[in-house]
């Protein structure tokens, strides 16, 4: 079934979960890379690849800092990313509620 409004970048399962986790943050908040990796149960490389894809789409912003001399990456959702995620979830809900369009 063809569903308008679904976002191809976000729809991939790992990226959807990344966006879902980041959507729980408040404005200006950023999530720790290590925590996100544990939450999603993925490897560093896998998570890094998906984050790169989302960053290229400007849905997320990565911030690299040093905490106690250790490199630390934090991830936050951009306004564009939040809007795209909200639209994607609305499209999924629309599909469930029977609002669908065949092309």
């Amino acid at each position, binding site marked *: 079934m063809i569903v308008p409004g*679904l976002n191809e970048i976000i729809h991939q399962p790992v990226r959807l979960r990344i966006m879902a986790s980041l959507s729980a943050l408040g404005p200006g908040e950023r999530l720790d890379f*290590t925590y996100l990796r544990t939450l999603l149960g993925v490897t560093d490389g896998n998570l890094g690849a998906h984050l790169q894809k989302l960053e290229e789409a400007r849905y997320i912003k990565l911030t690299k800092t040093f905490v106690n001399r250790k490199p630390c990456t934090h991830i936050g959702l951009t306004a564009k990313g939040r809007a795209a995620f909200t639209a994607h979830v609305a499209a999924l809900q629309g599909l469930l509620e029977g609002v669908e369009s065949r092309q």
Partner: protein
Amino acid sequence: MNASREEAARSLDDVHMIAERTRKAIAYAGADIVFVIWGIIWFIGYLSAQFFPLQAHWVWMVLVIGGMIASALTFRSRSPVVSPLGARLGAFWLLLCLFVGLWSWLLSPFLSVPAQADANDFWMHMHAITATIVMFAYVVMGLWLRSFMLWLGLGISALTVLGLLFLQPLFWIWMAVIGGGSLVVTGLIVRRKWQ
């Protein structure tokens, strides 16, 4: 883009589950340890008032400063989130301590420590005031952030007043066991429930 209803349902379940887990992790990261730390501080502080009344003020001062530093370090190391809210919460507790000090100074002309025979009664009231001010902060945070702190604040305030009114001979031990114990138990519940 193609998607089936089943896929949409699975995706939405996933979205809700992950968002909920993230919210809980943010809200409770480190909170279990901090509740246990403050429970132990209350326990030691109030027992010191029972057994070493003359040194109790110094014991409390060291415990509170140590507790604030330990709490800040715990939240900093355990929280998976960098948040402007964290700094505001830290400022809130620091300002609360400063205001309690300011109010004590402003009231000092009217609060002369009575003769030794009545001093214990005076200090029990002073500690009950301080404890309920801190619990009022819990109530505010409970309303603002998460409901269980609201009930914890109201519960310990009620127990403090109960101890002051009806259990004065055991007041310090009551506060150590019931007040400190409530904080420790809350920490253990938070740990068991959310982690």
